[in-house]
């Protein structure tokens, strides 16, 4: 670092603190928002991504796990296996009839219906008079799955019974425990029934809603799906070596979508995050502008204040490039300090905040940290740009004036 840059930067401690603080704040905000976005993306997409389902069959127009609109024909009297029969049955529906109907059943290892429904869940307490008192209301992603294949079931059991739920039993996501204090042994009201919590599972937190798992029969029963001969999805596990994307592309049934795991996961993410993304982008931009303005203004005023000294340097034989470098170095060191402090704050405060606020799920990737570093560098560079232009216009002859 040039001595002029170092001395100018560190001789004005207050100003340095302000400009470093401005950049640190911007870095902190940008870093937290990016991590928050990644955290949500991870949570929301995680369940589908990590599930044992290779291909999802859904109603036309329903392309993700959170879509409430999917409703496919399913006749329980035919039994769950073989599933292709069910889908063939669906094809008999005159409304869906079409010339070209393809379903490569030979690639399927297992296929099962999966019932998914968003609903409100209640945690209640029985008062002494026998009346129920509502303690907590929660948003549930209510899932009924086939115990035999476990297709679409809980990703992992973290507490309680590892048996699949039967009758009025339910496995709840651990996030419900963290957020609402739902424990193994509690009773949960949902879909007009009481459910016994027998275990907690992990990986089913969609931030805005959490998954609970019951048996396929119980779900169909509770929702009246048996009578209506309906299911939400069909979930498929393919034989080894079969490419899910190719399989999904090969399915051609009118009125029905087949989506491979990653497409289904990214649609699920999009449903939640596409609304957040524009807001996020605006806030990121604002944070960037705040950091840039604070740094730019302080560096500009510092340069203006020292313009006589820069004039002296010109007079005694320093080139413009030396002066540019001096200002740029001050700007970049300011940016570097701001970056270190901002990211440091984020790493310290992030986990702490996540403990207090459940929605505050942050996930910091090194790629994002690198992106923030890049943004900081741009901030520093742009902040130096206007002062540097001013340097060029300083007339060294002016230093002869008293």
């Amino acid at each position: 670092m040039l001595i002029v840059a170092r001395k100018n930067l560190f001789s004005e401690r207050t100003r340095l603190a302000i400009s470093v603080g401005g950049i640190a704040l911007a870095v902190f905000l940008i870093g937290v928002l990016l991590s928050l976005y990644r955290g949500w993306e991870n949570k929301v997409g995680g369940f589908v991504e990590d599930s044992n389902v290779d291909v999802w069959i859904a109603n036309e127009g329903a392309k993700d796990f959170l879509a409430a609109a999917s409703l496919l024909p399913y006749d329980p009297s035919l039994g769950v296996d073989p599933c292709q029969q069910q889908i063939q049955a669906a094809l008999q529906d005159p409304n869906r009839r079409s010339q070209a109907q393809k379903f490569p059943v030979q690639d399927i290892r297992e296929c099962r219906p999966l019932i998914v429904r968003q609903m409100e869940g209640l945690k209640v307490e029985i008062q002494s008079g026998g009346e129920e008192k509502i303690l907590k209301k929660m948003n549930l992603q209510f899932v009924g799955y086939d115990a035999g294949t476990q297709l679409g079931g809980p990703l992992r059991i973290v507490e309680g019974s590892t048996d699949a739920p039967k009758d009025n039993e339910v496995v709840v996501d651990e996030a419900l425990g963290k957020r609402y204090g739902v424990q193994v042994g509690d009773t949960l009201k949902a879909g007009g029934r009481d459910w016994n919590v027998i275990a907690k599972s992990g990986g089913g937190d969609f931030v805005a809603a959490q998954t609970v798992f019951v048996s396929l029969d119980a779900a169909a029963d509770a929702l009246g799906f048996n009578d209506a001969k309906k299911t939400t999805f069909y979930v498929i596990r393919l034989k080894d070596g079969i490419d899910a994307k190719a399989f999904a592309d090969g399915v051609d049934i009118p009125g029905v979508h087949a989506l491979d795991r990653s497409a289904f996961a990214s649609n699920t993410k999009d449903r939640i995050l596409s609304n957040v993304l524009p807001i996020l982008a605006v806030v990121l931009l604002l944070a960037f502008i705040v950091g840039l303005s604070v740094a730019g203004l302080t560096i500009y005023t510092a340069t203006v204040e020292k313009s006589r000294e820069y004039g002296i340097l010109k007079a005694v034989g320093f080139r413009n490039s030396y002066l540019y470098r001096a200002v740029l170095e001050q700007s970049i060191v300011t940016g570097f300090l701001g970056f270190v402090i901002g990211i440091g704050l984020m790493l310290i405060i992030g986990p702490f905040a996540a403990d207090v606020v459940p929605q505050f799920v942050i996930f910091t990737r090194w790629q994002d940290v690198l992106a923030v570093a890049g943004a900081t560098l741009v901030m520093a560079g742009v902040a130096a740009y206007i002062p540097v232009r001013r340097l060029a216009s300083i007339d060294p002859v002016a230093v002869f004036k008293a």
Partner: protein
Amino acid sequence: MTQNGRVILGMQGVTKIYGSGDAATRALDNINFDARAGEVVVIMGPSGAGKTTFLTIAGALLRPTSGTVTVSGLNITEMGEKNLPEVRRDRIGFIFQSFNLLDSLTSLENVTLVMTPDRSRGKAGVNRARELLDMLGLSHRVKSLPKNLSGGEKQRVAIGRALANNPDLILADEPTANLDSKRGREVMLLLRQIAYEMDKSVVIVSHDHRIREVASRIVWLEDGTFRSDVETARDPVCNRVIEVVGAPQTEHIGVLFYFCGEQCQRIFAENPTKFAEAG
């Protein structure tokens, strides 16, 4: 003193016109000038005479409208803009009226900063700066910031900086104007010492009559030209050297006093005895 030293600063037919058309000002009008190694040339003249213009042209900070300027044999009027900073850094030392040190740098750093990279490299540069400050009587001030130095000390640091790259030419613009008479005298003697002992050419622009004491030669600049036939006097109030012809004058106990302007004349009139005696 070596009157026949080599020419360090040479000007031939230098004219500088500011602006153009009706607003044009002819600040220097076809002047010829030489300053040699080992001499102190003092340039005097009324305000607006073109002294600063002269100095900035000599210092490769301003291009003349026409004419040739050489510094240590280099024709700087022919050089491209890109090479002028190097001429200023290596061949010319500047001393300013308001010292112009960098506030956040110590005396030592102010001197080493300007050294060409090959001079300042490693310990050698620092040693040289220390020697210079020693010579200037500032060995106890090397670590001080300008704000903790007296005016005279600041100007001596500035002289150290001017000498850092061992240039042949020292240009000083009113180097004593911001100093009291004692410090001003110290600085003048230093400048003479630099010319005589270090064989440098020192060109000083000044109004200060005391500086005559150290001058090898005094030249009078007026309306952009040098005049040799000028009768000068000292303004007893502000101590400026002024031209007698056309100056406001006052007689006091049989002696004629001349003034740089009516303001000094008025001040004199309020207490003539005080100023007459001081002179």
